[in-house]
Protein backbone atom coordinates (compact mmCIF):
# COMPACT_ATOMS: atom_id res chain seq x y z
CA UNK A 1 0.00 0.00 0.00
CA UNK A 2 2.69 2.41 1.07
CA UNK A 3 4.71 1.66 -2.03
CA UNK A 4 1.73 2.39 -4.29
CA UNK A 5 1.14 5.71 -2.58
CA UNK A 6 4.74 6.72 -3.18
CA UNK A 7 4.60 5.80 -6.85
CA UNK A 8 1.45 7.87 -7.28
CA UNK A 9 3.14 10.84 -5.66
CA UNK A 10 6.14 10.47 -7.93
CA UNK A 11 3.91 10.42 -10.99
CA UNK A 12 2.19 13.57 -9.83
CA UNK A 13 5.49 15.34 -9.45
CA UNK A 14 6.68 14.48 -12.92
CA UNK A 15 3.63 15.57 -14.84
CA UNK A 16 1.87 18.90 -14.42
CA UNK A 17 3.28 21.25 -17.02
CA UNK A 18 0.73 21.63 -19.73
CA UNK A 19 1.24 23.46 -22.99
CA UNK A 20 -0.48 26.49 -21.52
CA UNK A 21 1.69 26.61 -18.42
CA UNK A 22 4.74 26.44 -20.63
CA UNK A 23 3.42 29.20 -22.82
CA UNK A 24 2.63 31.40 -19.86
CA UNK A 25 6.12 30.94 -18.50
CA UNK A 26 7.67 31.94 -21.80
CA UNK A 27 5.38 34.95 -22.02
CA UNK A 28 6.21 36.06 -18.47
CA UNK A 29 9.89 35.90 -19.34
CA UNK A 30 9.43 38.11 -22.43
CA UNK A 31 10.13 41.58 -21.10
CA UNK A 32 8.87 43.55 -24.12
CA UNK A 33 5.54 41.71 -24.09
CA UNK A 34 5.10 42.05 -20.32
CA UNK A 35 5.85 45.77 -20.48
CA UNK A 36 3.29 46.00 -23.28
CA UNK A 37 0.63 44.26 -21.18
CA UNK A 38 1.30 46.52 -18.18
CA UNK A 39 1.15 49.70 -20.26
CA UNK A 40 -2.02 48.58 -22.03
CA UNK A 41 -3.65 47.82 -18.69
CA UNK A 42 -2.64 51.28 -17.50
CA UNK A 43 -4.10 53.00 -20.55
CA UNK A 44 -7.30 50.98 -20.23
CA UNK A 45 -7.57 51.91 -16.55
CA UNK A 46 -7.01 55.58 -17.36
CA UNK A 47 -9.69 55.41 -20.04
CA UNK A 48 -12.20 53.73 -17.74
CA UNK A 49 -11.55 56.12 -14.85
CA UNK A 50 -11.40 59.21 -17.08
CA UNK A 51 -14.32 61.12 -15.48
CA UNK A 52 -12.83 60.65 -12.01
CA UNK A 53 -9.35 61.76 -12.98
CA UNK A 54 -10.12 65.19 -14.33
CA UNK A 55 -12.18 68.08 -12.93
CA UNK A 56 -13.24 68.96 -16.47
CA UNK A 57 -15.90 67.31 -18.60
CA UNK A 58 -14.89 66.06 -22.04
CA UNK A 59 -17.34 68.48 -23.73
CA UNK A 60 -16.81 71.47 -21.43
CA UNK A 61 -16.08 74.45 -23.68
CA UNK A 62 -14.17 77.45 -22.33
CA UNK A 63 -13.61 80.32 -24.76
CA UNK A 64 -11.14 82.09 -22.44
CA UNK A 65 -8.50 79.45 -22.94
CA UNK A 66 -8.51 78.52 -26.62
CA UNK A 67 -5.60 76.32 -27.70
CA UNK A 68 -3.54 77.07 -24.60
CA UNK A 69 -0.39 75.23 -23.63
CA UNK A 70 -0.14 73.36 -20.32
CA UNK A 71 1.76 75.20 -17.60
CA UNK A 72 4.81 72.97 -17.84
CA UNK A 73 5.18 73.32 -21.64
CA UNK A 74 8.88 74.19 -22.11
CA UNK A 75 8.55 76.25 -25.30
CA UNK A 76 7.04 79.70 -25.30
CA UNK A 77 3.32 79.66 -26.04
CA UNK A 78 0.71 82.32 -26.77
CA UNK A 79 -1.27 81.48 -23.66
CA UNK A 80 -1.24 78.98 -20.82
CA UNK A 81 -4.00 77.09 -19.13
CA UNK A 82 -3.09 76.22 -15.56
CA UNK A 83 -4.71 73.05 -14.29
CA UNK A 84 -4.98 71.51 -17.74
CA UNK A 85 -2.36 68.77 -17.77
CA UNK A 86 -2.20 68.45 -21.58
CA UNK A 87 -3.36 71.98 -22.42
CA UNK A 88 -6.61 72.80 -24.21
CA UNK A 89 -7.96 72.36 -27.74
CA UNK A 90 -9.27 74.88 -30.25
CA UNK A 91 -12.49 75.54 -28.33
CA UNK A 92 -10.89 75.45 -24.90
CA UNK A 93 -11.77 71.91 -23.89
CA UNK A 94 -9.39 70.03 -21.58
CA UNK A 95 -7.15 67.90 -23.77
CA UNK A 96 -6.21 65.39 -21.07
CA UNK A 97 -9.76 64.24 -20.51
CA UNK A 98 -10.42 64.26 -24.25
CA UNK A 99 -7.44 62.04 -24.93
CA UNK A 100 -8.75 59.60 -22.34
CA UNK A 101 -12.27 59.67 -23.77
CA UNK A 102 -10.69 59.18 -27.19
CA UNK A 103 -8.97 56.13 -25.74
CA UNK A 104 -12.36 54.78 -24.67
CA UNK A 105 -13.75 55.05 -28.19
CA UNK A 106 -10.63 53.83 -29.95
CA UNK A 107 -10.20 50.84 -27.65
CA UNK A 108 -13.90 50.02 -27.81
CA UNK A 109 -13.85 50.09 -31.61
CA UNK A 110 -10.73 47.95 -31.56
CA UNK A 111 -12.22 45.35 -29.25
CA UNK A 112 -15.76 45.21 -30.64
CA UNK A 113 -14.71 45.13 -34.29
CA UNK A 114 -12.15 42.46 -33.48
CA UNK A 115 -14.82 40.45 -31.68
CA UNK A 116 -17.06 40.67 -34.74
CA UNK A 117 -14.25 39.54 -37.00
CA UNK A 118 -13.40 36.77 -34.54
CA UNK A 119 -16.94 35.45 -34.51
CA UNK A 120 -17.35 35.43 -38.30
CA UNK A 121 -13.80 34.32 -39.05
CA UNK A 122 -13.63 31.45 -36.58
CA UNK A 123 -17.01 29.97 -37.47
CA UNK A 124 -16.43 30.35 -41.20
CA UNK A 125 -12.88 29.02 -41.13
CA UNK A 126 -13.68 26.10 -38.86
CA UNK A 127 -16.68 25.11 -40.95
CA UNK A 128 -14.73 25.24 -44.20
CA UNK A 129 -11.79 23.34 -42.76
CA UNK A 130 -13.91 20.70 -41.06
CA UNK A 131 -16.28 19.99 -43.94
CA UNK A 132 -13.45 19.98 -46.49
CA UNK A 133 -13.77 18.96 -50.12
CA UNK A 134 -15.99 20.98 -52.41
CA UNK A 135 -17.56 23.08 -49.67
CA UNK A 136 -14.11 24.05 -48.45
CA UNK A 137 -12.91 24.92 -51.95
CA UNK A 138 -15.97 27.05 -52.59
CA UNK A 139 -15.87 28.83 -49.23
CA UNK A 140 -12.19 29.62 -49.56
CA UNK A 141 -12.68 30.82 -53.12
CA UNK A 142 -15.16 33.35 -51.75
CA UNK A 143 -12.55 34.50 -49.23
CA UNK A 144 -9.99 34.81 -52.01
CA UNK A 145 -12.37 36.98 -54.01
CA UNK A 146 -13.18 39.20 -51.06
CA UNK A 147 -9.48 39.39 -50.24
CA UNK A 148 -8.72 41.11 -53.51
CA UNK A 149 -11.24 43.89 -52.89
CA UNK A 150 -10.11 47.26 -51.61
CA UNK A 151 -12.47 46.90 -48.67
CA UNK A 152 -11.76 50.14 -46.91
CA UNK A 153 -13.55 51.79 -49.80
CA UNK A 154 -16.69 49.92 -48.96
CA UNK A 155 -16.44 50.98 -45.35
CA UNK A 156 -16.08 54.57 -46.52
CA UNK A 157 -19.15 54.28 -48.74
CA UNK A 158 -21.08 52.75 -45.86
CA UNK A 159 -20.04 55.47 -43.44
CA UNK A 160 -20.96 58.25 -45.85
CA UNK A 161 -24.28 56.77 -46.82
CA UNK A 162 -25.52 55.80 -43.39
CA UNK A 163 -24.62 59.03 -41.73
CA UNK A 164 -21.65 57.94 -39.66
CA UNK A 165 -23.58 55.50 -37.56
CA UNK A 166 -21.52 54.52 -34.53
CA UNK A 167 -22.59 50.87 -34.33
CA UNK A 168 -22.28 50.42 -38.06
CA UNK A 169 -18.68 51.59 -37.87
CA UNK A 170 -17.86 48.79 -35.44
CA UNK A 171 -19.61 46.15 -37.49
CA UNK A 172 -18.30 47.36 -40.84
CA UNK A 173 -14.68 47.29 -39.75
CA UNK A 174 -15.18 43.89 -38.13
CA UNK A 175 -16.77 42.56 -41.29
CA UNK A 176 -13.67 43.61 -43.22
CA UNK A 177 -11.15 42.07 -40.87
CA UNK A 178 -12.46 38.50 -40.65
CA UNK A 179 -10.86 37.19 -43.83
CA UNK A 180 -7.38 36.51 -42.49
CA UNK A 181 -8.91 35.02 -39.37
CA UNK A 182 -10.92 32.59 -41.48
CA UNK A 183 -7.79 31.50 -43.36
CA UNK A 184 -5.80 30.89 -40.19
CA UNK A 185 -8.58 28.94 -38.53
CA UNK A 186 -9.18 26.81 -41.63
CA UNK A 187 -5.52 25.87 -41.82
CA UNK A 188 -5.46 24.84 -38.17
CA UNK A 189 -8.73 22.95 -38.48
CA UNK A 190 -7.42 20.93 -41.42
CA UNK A 191 -4.61 19.56 -39.28
CA UNK A 192 -6.73 19.08 -36.16
CA UNK A 193 -9.44 17.10 -37.86
CA UNK A 194 -6.97 14.30 -38.58
CA UNK A 195 -6.47 13.75 -34.84
CA UNK A 196 -7.86 10.72 -33.03
CA UNK A 197 -10.11 12.61 -30.64
CA UNK A 198 -12.13 14.00 -33.51
CA UNK A 199 -12.50 10.52 -34.91
CA UNK A 200 -13.60 9.33 -31.50
CA UNK A 201 -16.21 12.09 -31.30
CA UNK A 202 -17.50 11.23 -34.74
CA UNK A 203 -17.62 7.54 -33.88
CA UNK A 204 -19.56 8.49 -30.77
CA UNK A 205 -22.22 10.10 -32.94
CA UNK A 206 -21.56 13.78 -32.13
CA UNK A 207 -23.08 16.12 -34.69
CA UNK A 208 -20.73 18.05 -37.02
CA UNK A 209 -21.81 21.38 -35.52
CA UNK A 210 -21.05 20.17 -32.01
CA UNK A 211 -17.70 18.77 -33.13
CA UNK A 212 -16.78 22.14 -34.66
CA UNK A 213 -17.83 24.22 -31.67
CA UNK A 214 -16.84 21.84 -28.87
CA UNK A 215 -13.77 20.08 -30.19
CA UNK A 216 -12.24 21.98 -33.08
CA UNK A 217 -12.55 25.63 -32.06
CA UNK A 218 -11.08 25.23 -28.54
CA UNK A 219 -7.98 23.75 -30.15
CA UNK A 220 -7.32 26.64 -32.51
CA UNK A 221 -7.31 29.20 -29.70
CA UNK A 222 -3.54 29.73 -29.74
CA UNK A 223 -2.95 31.09 -33.24
CA UNK A 224 -6.26 32.90 -33.11
CA UNK A 225 -5.23 34.72 -29.93
CA UNK A 226 -2.02 35.85 -31.59
CA UNK A 227 -3.91 37.17 -34.56
CA UNK A 228 -6.44 38.93 -32.34
CA UNK A 229 -3.73 40.95 -30.63
CA UNK A 230 -2.52 41.97 -34.06
CA UNK A 231 -6.01 42.78 -35.35
CA UNK A 232 -6.87 45.22 -32.56
CA UNK A 233 -4.17 47.75 -33.52
CA UNK A 234 -5.12 47.36 -37.17
CA UNK A 235 -8.72 48.20 -36.36
CA UNK A 236 -7.72 51.19 -34.23
CA UNK A 237 -5.70 52.46 -37.17
CA UNK A 238 -8.60 51.97 -39.57
CA UNK A 239 -10.95 53.85 -37.27
CA UNK A 240 -8.52 56.74 -36.88
CA UNK A 241 -8.05 56.78 -40.63
CA UNK A 242 -11.81 57.13 -41.15
CA UNK A 243 -12.04 59.76 -38.42
CA UNK A 244 -9.24 61.67 -40.06
CA UNK A 245 -11.25 61.82 -43.26
CA UNK A 246 -14.18 63.08 -41.21
CA UNK A 247 -16.11 59.83 -41.59
CA UNK A 248 -15.69 58.30 -38.16
CA UNK A 249 -16.75 59.43 -34.71
CA UNK A 250 -18.67 62.73 -34.57
CA UNK A 251 -18.32 65.65 -32.14
CA UNK A 252 -18.51 66.12 -29.23
CA UNK A 253 -17.52 62.47 -28.84
CA UNK A 254 -13.98 61.89 -29.88
CA UNK A 255 -11.42 59.29 -30.78
CA UNK A 256 -7.69 59.39 -31.22
CA UNK A 257 -8.14 59.77 -34.95
CA UNK A 258 -10.33 62.85 -34.51
CA UNK A 259 -7.92 64.38 -31.99
CA UNK A 260 -4.92 63.73 -34.21
CA UNK A 261 -6.70 65.22 -37.19
CA UNK A 262 -7.57 68.35 -35.19
CA UNK A 263 -4.05 68.52 -33.86
CA UNK A 264 -2.52 68.24 -37.31
CA UNK A 265 -4.43 71.36 -38.35
CA UNK A 266 -3.04 73.37 -35.44
CA UNK A 267 0.41 71.82 -35.46
CA UNK A 268 2.36 75.01 -35.89
CA UNK A 269 0.64 77.06 -33.20
CA UNK A 270 -0.39 74.35 -30.74
CA UNK A 271 1.84 71.28 -31.19
CA UNK A 272 0.57 69.67 -27.95
CA UNK A 273 -2.75 69.08 -29.63
CA UNK A 274 -1.05 66.69 -32.02
CA UNK A 275 1.60 65.37 -29.67
CA UNK A 276 -0.49 63.85 -26.87
CA UNK A 277 -3.08 61.91 -28.86
CA UNK A 278 -0.42 60.78 -31.33
CA UNK A 279 1.85 59.53 -28.54
CA UNK A 280 -1.02 57.72 -26.80
CA UNK A 281 -2.07 56.04 -29.99
CA UNK A 282 1.45 55.12 -31.08
CA UNK A 283 2.26 53.67 -27.64
CA UNK A 284 -0.93 51.61 -27.65
CA UNK A 285 -0.28 50.21 -31.10
CA UNK A 286 3.33 49.53 -30.16
CA UNK A 287 2.23 47.59 -27.09
CA UNK A 288 -0.34 45.51 -28.95
CA UNK A 289 2.28 44.59 -31.54
CA UNK A 290 4.83 43.55 -28.91
CA UNK A 291 2.23 41.56 -26.96
CA UNK A 292 1.23 39.84 -30.20
CA UNK A 293 4.84 38.99 -31.04
CA UNK A 294 5.38 37.78 -27.48
CA UNK A 295 2.30 35.56 -27.59
CA UNK A 296 3.42 34.06 -30.87
CA UNK A 297 6.84 33.26 -29.48
CA UNK A 298 5.26 31.81 -26.35
CA UNK A 299 2.73 29.60 -28.12
CA UNK A 300 4.90 28.56 -31.02
CA UNK A 301 8.32 27.76 -29.62
CA UNK A 302 9.71 26.31 -32.87
CA UNK A 303 10.54 29.79 -34.14
CA UNK A 304 13.38 30.42 -31.71
Amino acid at each position, binding site marked *: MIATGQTLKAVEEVQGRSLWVDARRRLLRNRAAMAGIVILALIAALALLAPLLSPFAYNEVNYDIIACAPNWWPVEAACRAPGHLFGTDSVGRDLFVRVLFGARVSLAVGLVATAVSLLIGVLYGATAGYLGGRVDALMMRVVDILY*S*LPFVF*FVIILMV*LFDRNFILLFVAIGAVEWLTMARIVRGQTLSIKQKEFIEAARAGGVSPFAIITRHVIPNVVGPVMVYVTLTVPGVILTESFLSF*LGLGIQEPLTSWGVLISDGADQMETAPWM*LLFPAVF*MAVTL*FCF*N*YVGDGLRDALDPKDR
Partner: protein
Amino acid sequence: MMVYALRRILGAIPTLFVIVTLAFFMMRAAPGGPFDSERRLPPEVERNVKAAYDLDKPLVQQYGIYLGKLAHGDLGPSYKNKDFTVTQLIATGLPVSMRLGLCAMTLALLLGTFLGVMAALRQNRWQDYSVMGVAMLGITIPTFVTAPLLTLVFGIYGVTLFGHEFSLPVGGWNGGALANMVLPVTVLALPQIAVVSRLMRGSMVEVLRANYIRTARAKGLPVTRIVVRHALRAAVLPLVSYLGPALAAILTGSLIVEQIFGLPGIGRYFIQGALNRDYTLVMGVVICYAALVILLNLLADIVYGILDPKVRLA
Protein backbone atom coordinates in the same frame (compact mmCIF):
# COMPACT_ATOMS: atom_id res chain seq x y z
CA MET B 1 1.95 30.55 -68.60
CA MET B 2 -0.16 32.43 -71.16
CA VAL B 3 -3.03 30.03 -70.61
CA TYR B 4 -2.74 30.54 -66.87
CA ALA B 5 -2.75 34.33 -67.19
CA LEU B 6 -5.72 34.20 -69.51
CA ARG B 7 -7.63 31.95 -67.13
CA ARG B 8 -6.91 34.23 -64.22
CA ILE B 9 -8.07 37.27 -66.16
CA LEU B 10 -11.29 35.49 -67.09
CA GLY B 11 -11.62 34.45 -63.45
CA ALA B 12 -11.45 38.12 -62.48
CA ILE B 13 -14.68 38.88 -64.32
CA PRO B 14 -16.97 37.30 -61.70
CA THR B 15 -14.99 39.12 -59.01
CA LEU B 16 -15.51 42.44 -60.72
CA PHE B 17 -19.15 41.58 -61.20
CA VAL B 18 -19.53 40.98 -57.45
CA ILE B 19 -17.86 44.31 -56.72
CA VAL B 20 -20.05 46.22 -59.16
CA THR B 21 -23.21 44.64 -57.79
CA LEU B 22 -22.24 45.21 -54.18
CA ALA B 23 -21.26 48.83 -54.73
CA PHE B 24 -24.31 49.56 -56.86
CA PHE B 25 -26.91 48.31 -54.44
CA MET B 26 -25.10 49.65 -51.39
CA MET B 27 -25.15 53.16 -52.79
CA ARG B 28 -28.80 52.94 -53.75
CA ALA B 29 -29.87 51.45 -50.45
CA ALA B 30 -28.79 54.55 -48.59
CA PRO B 31 -31.14 57.44 -47.89
CA GLY B 32 -30.58 60.59 -49.94
CA GLY B 33 -29.74 61.01 -53.61
CA PRO B 34 -27.35 62.96 -55.81
CA PHE B 35 -29.87 65.69 -56.59
CA ASP B 36 -31.04 66.41 -53.06
CA SER B 37 -30.04 69.92 -52.11
CA GLU B 38 -30.91 72.61 -49.60
CA ARG B 39 -33.18 74.27 -52.11
CA ARG B 40 -35.69 71.81 -53.50
CA LEU B 41 -35.93 71.75 -57.25
CA PRO B 42 -39.35 72.36 -58.79
CA PRO B 43 -40.99 68.93 -59.20
CA GLU B 44 -41.03 68.98 -62.99
CA VAL B 45 -37.35 69.95 -63.17
CA GLU B 46 -36.47 67.23 -60.71
CA ARG B 47 -38.44 64.74 -62.79
CA ASN B 48 -36.61 65.75 -65.93
CA VAL B 49 -33.20 65.57 -64.29
CA LYS B 50 -33.95 62.13 -62.92
CA ALA B 51 -35.27 60.98 -66.28
CA ALA B 52 -32.11 62.23 -67.98
CA TYR B 53 -30.00 60.00 -65.73
CA ASP B 54 -32.47 57.07 -65.75
CA LEU B 55 -32.96 57.53 -62.01
CA ASP B 56 -36.75 57.36 -62.38
CA LYS B 57 -36.70 53.75 -63.53
CA PRO B 58 -36.99 50.78 -61.16
CA LEU B 59 -33.74 49.87 -59.41
CA VAL B 60 -33.27 46.55 -61.19
CA GLN B 61 -33.67 48.23 -64.56
CA GLN B 62 -31.14 50.92 -63.58
CA TYR B 63 -28.75 48.14 -62.64
CA GLY B 64 -29.30 46.49 -66.01
CA ILE B 65 -28.66 49.75 -67.85
CA TYR B 66 -25.48 50.35 -65.85
CA LEU B 67 -24.16 46.86 -66.54
CA GLY B 68 -24.95 47.21 -70.21
CA LYS B 69 -23.02 50.45 -70.49
CA LEU B 70 -20.17 49.06 -68.40
CA ALA B 71 -19.80 46.14 -70.77
CA HIS B 72 -19.07 48.71 -73.48
CA GLY B 73 -16.52 50.43 -71.27
CA ASP B 74 -18.81 53.37 -70.53
CA LEU B 75 -18.79 54.41 -66.89
CA GLY B 76 -21.50 57.01 -67.44
CA PRO B 77 -21.58 60.76 -66.81
CA SER B 78 -20.55 62.22 -63.48
CA TYR B 79 -23.63 63.50 -61.62
CA LYS B 80 -21.83 66.33 -59.88
CA ASN B 81 -18.96 67.33 -62.15
CA LYS B 82 -21.15 68.51 -65.01
CA ASP B 83 -19.87 68.11 -68.56
CA PHE B 84 -17.45 65.37 -67.53
CA THR B 85 -17.83 61.66 -67.93
CA VAL B 86 -16.47 59.44 -65.20
CA THR B 87 -13.99 58.01 -67.68
CA GLN B 88 -12.60 61.48 -68.32
CA LEU B 89 -12.25 62.22 -64.61
CA ILE B 90 -10.48 58.92 -63.99
CA ALA B 91 -8.24 59.54 -66.98
CA THR B 92 -7.03 62.79 -65.41
CA GLY B 93 -6.68 61.39 -61.89
CA LEU B 94 -5.29 57.93 -62.50
CA PRO B 95 -1.86 58.93 -63.90
CA VAL B 96 -1.25 61.06 -60.80
CA SER B 97 -2.24 58.29 -58.41
CA MET B 98 -0.36 55.65 -60.39
CA ARG B 99 2.81 57.64 -60.47
CA LEU B 100 2.61 58.33 -56.77
CA GLY B 101 1.83 54.71 -55.93
CA LEU B 102 4.49 53.21 -58.17
CA CYS B 103 7.20 55.52 -56.83
CA ALA B 104 6.20 54.73 -53.26
CA MET B 105 6.07 51.01 -53.97
CA THR B 106 9.50 50.99 -55.64
CA LEU B 107 11.02 52.98 -52.82
CA ALA B 108 9.43 50.70 -50.21
CA LEU B 109 10.59 47.51 -51.91
CA LEU B 110 14.17 48.64 -52.48
CA LEU B 111 14.77 50.31 -49.14
CA GLY B 112 12.74 47.76 -47.20
CA THR B 113 14.61 44.81 -48.72
CA PHE B 114 17.95 46.46 -48.06
CA LEU B 115 17.14 47.25 -44.43
CA GLY B 116 15.64 43.81 -43.83
CA VAL B 117 18.69 42.03 -45.22
CA MET B 118 20.99 44.24 -43.16
CA ALA B 119 19.05 43.45 -40.00
CA ALA B 120 19.09 39.73 -40.74
CA LEU B 121 22.84 39.69 -41.36
CA ARG B 122 23.42 41.47 -38.06
CA GLN B 123 20.81 39.46 -36.19
CA ASN B 124 20.45 40.37 -32.49
CA ARG B 125 23.00 43.13 -32.69
CA TRP B 126 22.40 46.84 -32.47
CA GLN B 127 21.90 47.22 -36.22
CA ASP B 128 19.12 44.63 -36.07
CA TYR B 129 17.47 46.18 -33.04
CA SER B 130 17.56 49.71 -34.42
CA VAL B 131 16.16 48.74 -37.82
CA MET B 132 13.38 46.71 -36.21
CA GLY B 133 12.60 49.43 -33.69
CA VAL B 134 12.30 52.04 -36.41
CA ALA B 135 10.20 49.63 -38.47
CA MET B 136 7.82 49.17 -35.56
CA LEU B 137 7.53 52.95 -35.32
CA GLY B 138 6.81 53.12 -39.04
CA ILE B 139 3.97 50.62 -38.62
CA THR B 140 2.42 52.24 -35.57
CA ILE B 141 2.58 55.92 -36.54
CA PRO B 142 -0.23 56.58 -38.99
CA THR B 143 0.28 58.37 -42.29
CA PHE B 144 -1.76 61.34 -41.18
CA VAL B 145 0.73 62.03 -38.39
CA THR B 146 3.89 61.61 -40.46
CA ALA B 147 2.50 63.77 -43.27
CA PRO B 148 2.03 66.98 -41.23
CA LEU B 149 5.23 66.36 -39.28
CA LEU B 150 7.36 66.00 -42.41
CA THR B 151 5.57 68.98 -43.94
CA LEU B 152 6.42 71.07 -40.93
CA VAL B 153 10.07 70.08 -40.83
CA PHE B 154 10.96 69.95 -44.54
CA GLY B 155 8.37 72.29 -45.99
CA ILE B 156 7.77 75.08 -43.56
CA TYR B 157 10.91 75.29 -41.42
CA GLY B 158 13.19 74.15 -44.24
CA VAL B 159 16.41 72.24 -43.89
CA THR B 160 19.98 73.47 -44.17
CA LEU B 161 22.06 71.18 -46.32
CA PHE B 162 25.55 71.84 -47.68
CA GLY B 163 25.48 75.39 -46.44
CA HIS B 164 22.32 76.58 -48.13
CA GLU B 165 18.79 76.32 -46.99
CA PHE B 166 16.07 74.70 -49.03
CA SER B 167 12.50 73.67 -48.46
CA LEU B 168 10.14 71.36 -50.31
CA PRO B 169 6.76 72.34 -51.67
CA VAL B 170 4.07 71.21 -49.25
CA GLY B 171 1.22 70.77 -51.67
CA GLY B 172 0.05 70.76 -55.24
CA TRP B 173 1.10 68.57 -58.11
CA ASN B 174 2.81 71.02 -60.47
CA GLY B 175 2.70 68.53 -63.34
CA GLY B 176 4.47 65.89 -61.29
CA ALA B 177 7.66 67.84 -60.62
CA LEU B 178 10.19 65.90 -58.59
CA ALA B 179 10.20 68.38 -55.71
CA ASN B 180 6.43 68.08 -55.38
CA MET B 181 6.65 64.30 -55.31
CA VAL B 182 9.24 63.95 -52.56
CA LEU B 183 7.06 64.47 -49.51
CA PRO B 184 3.94 62.57 -50.63
CA VAL B 185 5.96 59.59 -51.86
CA THR B 186 7.98 59.46 -48.66
CA VAL B 187 4.89 59.58 -46.49
CA LEU B 188 3.20 56.90 -48.56
CA ALA B 189 6.25 54.65 -48.57
CA LEU B 190 7.21 54.85 -44.88
CA PRO B 191 4.77 52.28 -43.45
CA GLN B 192 5.46 49.95 -46.37
CA ILE B 193 9.23 50.24 -45.87
CA ALA B 194 8.58 49.16 -42.30
CA VAL B 195 6.45 46.15 -43.23
CA VAL B 196 8.77 45.06 -46.04
CA SER B 197 11.87 45.25 -43.86
CA ARG B 198 10.21 43.16 -41.14
CA LEU B 199 9.12 40.57 -43.69
CA MET B 200 12.55 40.46 -45.30
CA ARG B 201 14.33 40.10 -41.99
CA GLY B 202 12.10 37.21 -40.98
CA SER B 203 12.51 35.20 -44.16
CA MET B 204 16.20 36.06 -44.49
CA VAL B 205 16.96 34.83 -40.98
CA GLU B 206 15.30 31.55 -41.85
CA VAL B 207 17.04 31.17 -45.19
CA LEU B 208 20.47 31.97 -43.77
CA ARG B 209 20.13 28.92 -41.50
CA ALA B 210 19.55 26.59 -44.46
CA ASN B 211 22.07 23.91 -45.32
CA TYR B 212 22.79 25.17 -48.80
CA ILE B 213 23.87 28.51 -47.36
CA ARG B 214 26.25 26.68 -45.05
CA THR B 215 27.58 24.82 -48.07
CA ALA B 216 28.12 28.07 -49.91
CA ARG B 217 29.96 29.46 -46.90
CA ALA B 218 32.06 26.32 -46.63
CA LYS B 219 33.02 26.64 -50.28
CA GLY B 220 34.48 30.00 -49.31
CA LEU B 221 32.20 32.24 -51.35
CA PRO B 222 32.27 35.92 -50.40
CA VAL B 223 29.37 37.04 -48.20
CA THR B 224 27.87 39.46 -50.73
CA ARG B 225 27.74 36.71 -53.32
CA ILE B 226 26.07 34.30 -50.90
CA VAL B 227 23.49 36.92 -49.97
CA VAL B 228 22.74 38.16 -53.45
CA ARG B 229 22.93 34.93 -55.44
CA HIS B 230 21.86 32.26 -52.96
CA ALA B 231 19.89 33.68 -50.07
CA LEU B 232 17.98 36.57 -51.60
CA ARG B 233 16.28 34.53 -54.27
CA ALA B 234 14.66 32.26 -51.72
CA ALA B 235 14.10 34.96 -49.12
CA VAL B 236 12.29 37.28 -51.48
CA LEU B 237 9.35 34.89 -52.00
CA PRO B 238 7.17 35.99 -49.06
CA LEU B 239 7.70 39.54 -50.27
CA VAL B 240 6.24 38.70 -53.66
CA SER B 241 3.04 37.41 -52.11
CA TYR B 242 2.89 40.59 -50.03
CA LEU B 243 2.75 42.72 -53.20
CA GLY B 244 -1.04 42.51 -53.47
CA PRO B 245 -1.80 43.62 -49.90
CA ALA B 246 0.93 46.26 -50.24
CA LEU B 247 -0.80 47.76 -53.24
CA ALA B 248 -4.12 47.82 -51.39
CA ALA B 249 -2.43 49.56 -48.45
CA ILE B 250 -0.80 52.13 -50.70
CA LEU B 251 -4.10 52.84 -52.44
CA THR B 252 -5.75 53.36 -49.07
CA GLY B 253 -2.88 55.54 -47.93
CA SER B 254 -3.11 57.59 -51.09
CA LEU B 255 -6.62 58.68 -50.04
CA ILE B 256 -5.05 60.46 -47.08
CA VAL B 257 -1.94 61.65 -48.88
CA GLU B 258 -3.86 63.11 -51.80
CA GLN B 259 -6.13 64.88 -49.33
CA ILE B 260 -3.29 66.33 -47.23
CA PHE B 261 -1.06 67.42 -50.09
CA GLY B 262 -3.90 68.50 -52.36
CA LEU B 263 -2.96 66.20 -55.22
CA PRO B 264 -5.38 65.72 -58.12
CA GLY B 265 -5.49 61.90 -58.00
CA ILE B 266 -8.48 59.57 -58.08
CA GLY B 267 -8.46 59.19 -54.29
CA ARG B 268 -9.79 62.70 -54.00
CA TYR B 269 -12.49 62.01 -56.56
CA PHE B 270 -13.52 59.01 -54.52
CA ILE B 271 -13.95 60.95 -51.27
CA GLN B 272 -15.65 63.84 -53.04
CA GLY B 273 -17.90 61.50 -54.95
CA ALA B 274 -18.89 59.57 -51.84
CA LEU B 275 -19.69 62.76 -49.93
CA ASN B 276 -21.75 64.16 -52.84
CA ARG B 277 -23.46 60.83 -53.60
CA ASP B 278 -22.07 61.00 -57.08
CA TYR B 279 -23.02 57.36 -57.71
CA THR B 280 -21.35 56.90 -61.06
CA LEU B 281 -18.09 58.51 -60.01
CA VAL B 282 -17.77 56.37 -56.87
CA MET B 283 -18.60 53.22 -58.82
CA GLY B 284 -16.08 54.13 -61.48
CA VAL B 285 -13.29 54.69 -58.98
CA VAL B 286 -14.09 51.49 -57.07
CA ILE B 287 -14.09 49.45 -60.28
CA CYS B 288 -10.82 51.04 -61.30
CA TYR B 289 -9.20 50.26 -57.93
CA ALA B 290 -10.49 46.70 -57.92
CA ALA B 291 -9.20 46.07 -61.43
CA LEU B 292 -5.79 47.41 -60.40
CA VAL B 293 -5.63 45.19 -57.33
CA ILE B 294 -6.71 42.11 -59.27
CA LEU B 295 -4.16 42.81 -61.99
CA LEU B 296 -1.34 43.23 -59.50
CA ASN B 297 -2.28 40.06 -57.65
CA LEU B 298 -2.08 38.22 -60.96
CA LEU B 299 1.32 39.74 -61.70
CA ALA B 300 2.53 38.77 -58.24
CA ASP B 301 1.44 35.17 -58.78
CA ILE B 302 3.20 35.00 -62.12
CA VAL B 303 6.40 36.46 -60.68
CA TYR B 304 6.13 33.97 -57.82
CA GLY B 305 5.90 31.14 -60.31
CA ILE B 306 9.01 32.37 -62.12
CA LEU B 307 11.03 32.77 -58.91
CA ASP B 308 9.96 29.61 -57.15
CA PRO B 309 10.63 26.51 -59.24
CA LYS B 310 8.45 24.47 -56.88
CA VAL B 311 5.34 26.30 -58.09
CA ARG B 312 4.03 25.20 -61.46
CA LEU B 313 1.41 27.45 -62.98
CA ALA B 314 -1.00 25.52 -65.12
